[in-house]
């Protein structure tokens, strides 16, 4: 394909897809875009990016060595996201895919650690964004702008030369951790997903999970185009009625979504099975899927939800290829090896270790942290406990103390520190629990012997000092927190006591 410069494996792979599937439909939002049209748009937008932003040489003039322009994507799914992402790559820039819900503090931390030369963001969010060096936004689409950010001092960390995409994990202290991926790793993830899940050019994927999330990034963004398939987006909130309507109207074959949506599908009043007739694969990730939702979905829609297992640092890990197999998280995908580190009680159950062809290269802003979690053979310590049964991965719990809420990791000690600082609080502990809808939440248990501290005061302290997703969903008061001889809270016993008091 002439005209589009290529700078690495990712651009080469995409240029090949765009040329190979030229007449077919590639992207479908409010309108459909063919591979040929996508190629033309990507090319035009790459040129536009070169014009509207200072060049990397200009930006790097104070630096000993130039650094590529860093373009942050802080945007919900839409066709423009895909066009801009590939245009960024073809312009020779580095895309950093931020969670669209990151707040100014988190975006500012990324800017300070990694450097951000521009942000792709919704126009309505620009005014409320408090980051350094905001320039005049440049219109891209009706509701999307490119917001140039003046480059501050040289960023303290410089990406590896092979890095072609960055994604983020939440980090426990409000500083998102930036994962670097080489072009080879991104291309491998896409090709292995296509191979392992038998995606073909007849597939039409409706992607409802955020493209900045590993699930959508790896199962939809490049893999769809590798297969010559169609990538569909839905405008508006992912409610079951519009989702089902879209599936029926567009003949969607793959749905990429998250557990809450599937639960809403099987709740009373959910869409009729006939509307879902074209669907061949329903993929869930972000949080564990409830087994009864999987069972009800199968009995209502005749389709097994594949509870994909992936890790931000390694990419996709498993997929169930056998439609008749109903337990576990599936078999390792091509390019994925899974080992179980023998546990103390049962050697068959232990930490899940993963090595893939799509591994991250490291954390840009936490040098050495990723490498620490690799064993001598290059297997990544997932922090999950599990076992392999019949070649399928089954998880049994976590080995780490972090609380996972909607895919974001929360360090309970950060919450305890905020609450312990309140006058009248004698002791506190935070641990994972579930709300009435069985969604994960942080349960904070407080001891306040003088009786002056109220739930409202504790909640207010948390809301004013913690990011919204870290605010405990449940607060309980007890007379004493049971602890072991070395002072470790006995969470199982505490849960039992609280369960008993709630029931009484």
């Amino acid at each position, binding site marked *: 394909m002439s005209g589009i410069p290529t700078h690495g494996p990712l651009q080469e792979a995409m240029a090949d897809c765009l040329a190979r599937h030229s007449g077919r439909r590639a992207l479908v939002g409010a309108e459909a875009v063919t591979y040929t049209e996508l190629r033309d748009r990507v090319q035009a937008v790459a040129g536009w990016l070169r014009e509207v932003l200072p060049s990397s040489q200009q930006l790097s003039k104070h630096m000993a060595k130039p650094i590529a322009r860093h373009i942050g994507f802080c945007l919900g799914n839409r066709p423009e996201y895909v066009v801009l992402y590939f245009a960024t790559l073809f312009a020779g820039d580095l895309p950093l895919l931020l969670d669209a819900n990151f707040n100014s503090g988190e975006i500012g931390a990324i800017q300070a650690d990694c450097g951000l030369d521009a942000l792709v963001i919704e126009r309505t969010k620009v005014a409320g964004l408090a980051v350094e060096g905001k320039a005049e936004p440049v219109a891209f689409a009706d509701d999307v702008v490119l917001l140039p950010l003046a480059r501050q001092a040289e960023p303290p960390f410089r990406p590896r030369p092979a890095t072609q995409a960055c994604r983020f994990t939440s980090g426990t202290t409000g500083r998102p951790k930036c994962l670097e991926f080489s072009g080879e790793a991104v291309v491998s993830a896409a090709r292995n997903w296509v191979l392992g899940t038998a995606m073909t050019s007849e597939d039409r994927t409706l992607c409802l999970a955020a493209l900045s999330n590993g699930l959508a990034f790896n199962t939809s963004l490049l893999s769809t185009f590798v297969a010559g398939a169609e990538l569909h987006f839905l405008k508006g909130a992912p409610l*079951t009625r519009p989702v089902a309507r879209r599936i029926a109207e567009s003949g969607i074959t793959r749905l990429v979504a998250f557990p809450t949506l599937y639960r809403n599908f099987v709740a009373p009043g959910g869409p009729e099975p006939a509307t879902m007739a074209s669907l061949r694969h329903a993929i869930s990730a972000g949080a564990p899927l409830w087994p009864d939702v999987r069972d009800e979905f199968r009995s209502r829609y005749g389709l097994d939800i594949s509870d994909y297992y992936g890790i931000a640092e390694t990419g996709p890990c498993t997929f169930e290829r056998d439609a008749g197999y109903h337990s576990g998280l599936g078999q390792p995908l091509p390019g994925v090896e899974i080992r179980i580190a023998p546990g103390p009680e049962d050697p068959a159950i232990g930490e899940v270790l993963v090595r893939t062809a799509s591994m991250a290269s490291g954390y840009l802003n936490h040098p050495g942290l990723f490498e620490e979690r690799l064993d001598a053979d290059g297997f990544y310590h997932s922090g999950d406990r599990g076992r392999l049964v019949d070649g399928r991965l089954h998880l049994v719990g976590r080995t780490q103390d972090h609380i996972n809420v*909607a895919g974001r990791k929360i360090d309970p000690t950060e919450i305890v520190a905020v609450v312990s600082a309140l006058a009248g609080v004698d002791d506190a502990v935070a641990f994972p629990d579930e*709300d*009435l*809808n069985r*969604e994960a939440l942080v349960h904070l248990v407080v001891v306040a012997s003088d009786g002056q501290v109220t739930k409202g005061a504790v909640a207010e302290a948390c*809301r004013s000092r913690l990011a919204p997703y870290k605010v405990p969903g*449940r607060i309980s008061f007890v007379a004493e927190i049971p602890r072991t001889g070395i002072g470790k809270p006995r969470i199982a016993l505490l849960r039992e006591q609280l369960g008993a008091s709630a029931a009484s």
Partner: protein
Amino acid sequence: MDDDDRLAMKKRVQRLVYLAAGGKIREDELAQSDADLRQIGLDSLGYLNLLEGLERTFGVAIDLDQMEDHSFLHTIDNLVRYLAAQRGEAA
């Protein structure tokens, strides 16, 4: 719609909000019907549940991307006003 209808609707909306948030909103906060739901614990998943609940309970189709102003979702009072207006239009 008289006051009794409006009160009954408010109770149903409060119940829906409570369920949508998975019980994470305290009773005293729920009783303040002008409180901003986003401030008292309704997160994005909670809103998704709430919108599903509103559609299924009241039979209204809510297309957020067709609407400029989303403030009808911000408080229980606003939700009741919105639903009452929808009912008025349908009648």
